[in-house]
């Protein structure tokens, strides 16, 4: 468990744009109830707003996109739409995922773009009150932490809330390409 700093009262995941507007219902004891889809990459558990998830697919071969950063695994035909697939493990600087039939692609919609993330396994749908989402600890600019906007504890496990807009923001992709 990570010891978190004191929660500042004005932290609201909704304000920082990681939770879609239509993903909530008011809880009896104040705050909103929101749902996330959680998944595993290595030993860590992450989650994304359930409203952004379009579908979940088993791993299938993708077509390489040449001259793109390593974490861009390639593109996939999703019923006629060309969808880029990002390797989350690689995005966090932990090397390429060795794909098997058990690996999973989560197809997300961010604004009007559609993209997929490659993860090890989908674990759960979690329902929490926004009050229970803690702000992420101070960032030390380590690659993984740039994309985490909040933390929550579910059944003794810590789950990190990912800020997908940031994950696939083209500027950061370009930065990553330059770093490579």
């Amino acid at each position, binding site marked *: 468990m990570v010891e978190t*700093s004191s929660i*500042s009262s*004005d*932290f609201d995941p909704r*304000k*920082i*744009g990681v939770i879609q507007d239509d993903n909530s219902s008011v809880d009896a004891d104040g705050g909103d109830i929101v749902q996330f889809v959680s998944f595993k990459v290595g030993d860590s558990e992450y989650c994304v707003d359930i409203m952004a998830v379009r579908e979940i697919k088993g791993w299938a*071969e*993708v*077509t*390489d*996109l*040449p*001259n*793109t950063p390593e974490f*861009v695994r*390639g*593109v*996939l*035909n999703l*019923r*006629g*739409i*060309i*969808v*880029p697939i990002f390797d989350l493990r690689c995005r966090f600087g932990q090397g390429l995922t060795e794909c098997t039939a058990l690996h999973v692609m989560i197809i997300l919609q*961010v*604004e009007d*773009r*559609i*993209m997929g993330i490659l993860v090890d396994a989908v674990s759960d749908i979690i329902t929490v009150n926004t009050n229970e989402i803690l*702000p*992420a600890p*101070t960032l030390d600019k380590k690659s993984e932490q740039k994309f985490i*906007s*909040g933390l929550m504890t579910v059944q003794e496990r810590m789950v990190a809330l990912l*800020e997908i*807009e*940031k994950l*696939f*923001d*083209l*500027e950061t*992709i*370009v930065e990553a*390409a*330059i770093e*490579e």
Partner: protein
Amino acid sequence: MLPSMQDDPFYQFKVTFFEECDELLGNMESYLTDLEEGDHDSELLNAIFRVVHSIKAGAGAFSFERMVNFTHRFEFLLDKLRDGSMTVDDTIVRVLFDSNDVLVDLVDFARNGAETPREFGAHELAKIEALINGESLPEEGALPAAAGSAVPEVEGEKSKAGTDAGSKVFEIDFSPKPSLFQHANEPLLIIRELSGLGDLKVSLDSSMIPELHVMEPEKSYFTWTFELNTEASRDDIDEVFEFVVDDCDLTIVEKDCTGKITGVDVTAASDLGDDDFGFFVNEEDLPGNQASSNQSAEPTVDQEDDDDFGFFVDVDAGEVEAGVQTNDENSKSYKADSLPVEAPASSEATASVKQSSMPQAPVPQTANAPVAEKPTSVAKVSSIRVDIDRVDKLVNMVGEIVITHSMLASELTVLQEDRQTSLGSGIEEMSMHIRELQDNVMAIRMQPVKSVFSRMPRIVRDVSKKLDKKVKLVTEGENTEVDKTVVEELADPLTHMIRNSLDHGLETPDERIAAGKPAEGKILLSAEHRGGRIVITIADDGRGINRPKVLELAKEKGVVEESQVLSDEEIDNLIFAPGFSTADEVTDLSGRGVGMDVVRRNIQSLGGRVSVVSEPGVGSRFQLTLPLTLAVLDGMVVGVGEQKFVIPINNIIETLRPEKEAIKTLVDGTHVIKVRGEYIRLVETRKTFSVLNAETDLSKNLVVLVEADGDRTIGIVVDKLSGQQQVVIKSLEANFGRVEGIASATILGNGSVCLILDIDGLADMDSSNQSDTAHYLKSNMLSSGISSDVSENEAAQ
């Protein structure tokens, strides 16, 4: 589109109105051209009149005052021509053209929500007034006194023929029915329009208003009596009530100035009872129904063009054509030839014009029987306006079906090779249906090039005036159809090339006469289908390309070496060479004949080509050839290692297996190949795209010679050719961004994504590659307009 109108409750209606204006004014241009050529048919004048009238009606509804004022007088002049009290001559035609140009601009001002300059169009308005009053035209540049005023009063000038000479007094009783309001009409607008016709006295009879507790909000309790002192004709007044005539009780009585009734005319109210809320109005009775579907086009399913399989039985024809069922593998193509070219989908302004151009008739006995003309008084809606997004969705869905189907078909071949099974014949039958479906869906997006061509006469007029040249523009084949996307892309290059011809091609009248040519130059703009592509020709009979000068300029700018010797044809094509001109924008039209290289680049980015043939003293002929659609392209699927790529067939010159001794290596590691005495740079896809397991021995590879922009030839090194096929173009940018050397993507029969090579991009790429990928990504991906607005995470500590 309409920046300032986004919050306007009428926004959608305005969009429709402006769309209609564009169509109407496009038609107007061709009507006026016909008129200029001496066709003084009354139908033609009626059509012109109706264009202006329709625009006026819309402008009135949206309170575009300037437009209303202008169209009002314009219409008045046209009316005089229509009823024969004036005859069309060259002067009048010129004024009509000028007025039409003003109207186009007024529409544009209104569309952009821009302030119309106060004096705008005043000069043309003065000319119109002068014509109406039978005076000579005002001097160029002299500003008329009436400029900027509202509707200028016509001085009590007696016109030549007296249908509407002098002022008359009309007494009008007008009591609207509830249906008038249900049809979204507004008495106030009618009253305003009446007051525009002359001196109006309005009296309201409100005696019908009941007690408040029995008042029904949906009913109308008012009756108006107008006394109108006007010079306008009875027809003008009828027009004011044109849209409401069925929804009101209307009596119009003409008195002479002493107040004596000279003629009574009671407009029969429609036979709906007052208690009927007008729900059952016969649409067709609404004259000039302004429904946005006032268009006429033959249904695009053309029985004559059942291409090569009479699979679909034409019920009307009452006979079954027994067709031979063919099924060749490569027939997933989109057949341009099967598109009905003779059915222009342009909207005609009125039913009456339709009589002359497209006879409407009851269902013919046989589909192909000639149709007798049968005038009908009502425009049948034979076409509808559909949002392009919906069509695009349809196109996409059909594309998906094609892909899924070819996947099924290829799965089937893996199964027992037994074509007699019902499964096999089902799949085969389906492929025919799908092909038919694809052709028809593609045909929906087809548009005649007329919409672009009709903008050109104005450009010719404007530019020739500026340059003091006399020019006649002749257009041919404007009903040739191409995909909507191509039509949109054509406007800029065409505009540019026409200006170029006017500016550089054509001589001044004096020069022409000295050269023994007629003073008036000629520019031909034509379009035709040729072998599944559209060919657009822009020819002038001017001086031709000045070769010595072009060569000198090219050498000066370093486009060609000092010592180079070029053939005439090569010199002519120098005008397209990058760097030959200084402009960098096709839209930069102020320059004098600059940016032909940009024209060429734009055309090539559409998968087209542009060429020029010129003869000194006789003229030049530019030719554009373009694909009929941008949604599909013919490609060669090539294999490199485990990957497949598509090379557009358009770019491919030839494919060869290189001999070892023909390949040379340069200092920086670049390979070149000697083909017929020329050295051509090789682009090794294996390196460029970091493909694994690819053949490294160049002599075992194949080289595909392709032509990139600006006539550069490069050789693309691949492992094998997998065959030619038509592919549906899919965007990579939509969800990702640009990738260097890749133009777009497509989906192969097995459902996998395949990348389409960007030949021009490859030619530009540094052969060593990789080094500036990041820089490239930065410049391209970020400029492709996708960036998500990430609010910084400002979580408190």
